[in-house]
């Protein structure tokens, strides 16, 4: 089982489901989340690459990184996830069982934003 450290988790979160990116672009995605030096992120990406979690390719002389498992594993995961979601809520603990319509979600988001404003919280 592959286990990720705290910074590795944040770097993976910046590459999962995102277009391939250079080290500098990954640093940009992490701004405000994990402000780290360029070399720290480069080292972390290299470590993730050695673990097989990140793929890299040289484009115009610079390494670009993307989440691995884009091939067979992703296809398999998509199929299993579709089956799990089609299973319905029975016996399954879902964070959100059924999503409301867009208008309701917008209203809820507006309520949360208004409450944040009232309490002086950050959006």
């Amino acid at each position, binding site marked *: *089982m*592959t*286990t*990720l450290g*705290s910074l590795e*988790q*944040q770097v*993976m*979160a*910046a*590459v*999962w*489901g*995102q277009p391939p990116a250079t080290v500098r672009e990954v640093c940009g995605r992490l701004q405000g*989340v994990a402000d780290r030096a360029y070399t720290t992120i480069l080292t972390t990406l290299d470590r993730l690459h050695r673990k097989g*979690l990140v793929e890299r390719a040289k484009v115009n002389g610079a390494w670009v990184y993307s*989440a*691995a*498992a*884009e091939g067979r*594993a*992703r296809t*398999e*995961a*998509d199929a*299993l*996830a*579709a*089956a*799990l*979601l089609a*299973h319905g*809520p*029975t*016996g*399954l*603990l*879902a*964070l*959100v*069982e*059924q*999503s*409301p*319509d*867009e208008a*309701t*979600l917008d209203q*809820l*988001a507006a*309520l*949360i934003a208004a*409450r*944040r404003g009232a*309490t002086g*919280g950050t959006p």
Partner: protein
Amino acid sequence: MSALGALGGALGLGIGLCWLLAGAAAPALGPIRKAGPGPRADLAVWVNGGVLLVGITVVVGALIAPGLGALGLGVDHCDVHDGHAHLCLRHGPAGPGWIGGFGLALLAARLPAAMAALRDQLRLERLGRGLAALGVESGGLRVVPTDAPLCHTVGLLRPTTLISGTLLAGLAPAAATAVRAHEAAHRRAHDTRVAAALELAAALFPPLAPWRRLWAAAAEELADEAAARATDRLTVAAALVQVAAAGRPPALGLGAASGGVEARVLRLLGPAPAARPRWGPVALAGLALTLLAALGGAHHELHHAAETIFSLGAPGGW
């Protein structure tokens, strides 16, 4: 045939009693819905466990004396019977009687649903294990390489939270912390096991189904509260909205019954409920011990009570 008749009669009586108790508990649902999530979850578990434990106690209690008698370990009390219905593994009754038969018919009618619930659970386990194997451990979550809106905790023996990499990547750090805390609360409370047990109970005894739904909603609210303690209430509310938006099918979501998320977000925008001690598991353990003591001390009375009920069902005698 006499042993089968007695076993069937006792089992049918227990099943019938479970239905009766489950139905009798229904009027309590209304007032309980107004309680906080802790008491609601506890009461739902207590009602389900209580109904099943009482049913099991009646079946076992009614069969202890004739069982011991049949094995030669106790007195065969057939001789002291004075004509009323006789629940005996050696000599009778000639049939389970209509009360036992009715209970057995109820069981037979519900067995396919119970088997389907078991099959569903096993399928869910397989899917969960398959997805977990494709994922990467990340702070208590198993991040799966898929775009599907996956954020689920599955697994009876080793509960695992599965989340899609795309969904996690789209969450702000505070929202991701809230999701981790929410799912960790489910795992700590062994909610997957409780959900599976309540699912099976509801499949066997449909009057228990509303209690399963009551528990499910309360368990989500309790996990929301745990997440709010790890972050804050607005962050949890925002995370719910964000995950709901990610999981909303483009068209199918419109008009769908989705009061759950809305109600949870509105609750989180309100004040935190008062912290109450969880007494459900303790009460259930107390009931189990009481019933165990009843089995030891009063199984003769239980046996004769069962026979009396059968006598009521067959007033002409056996």
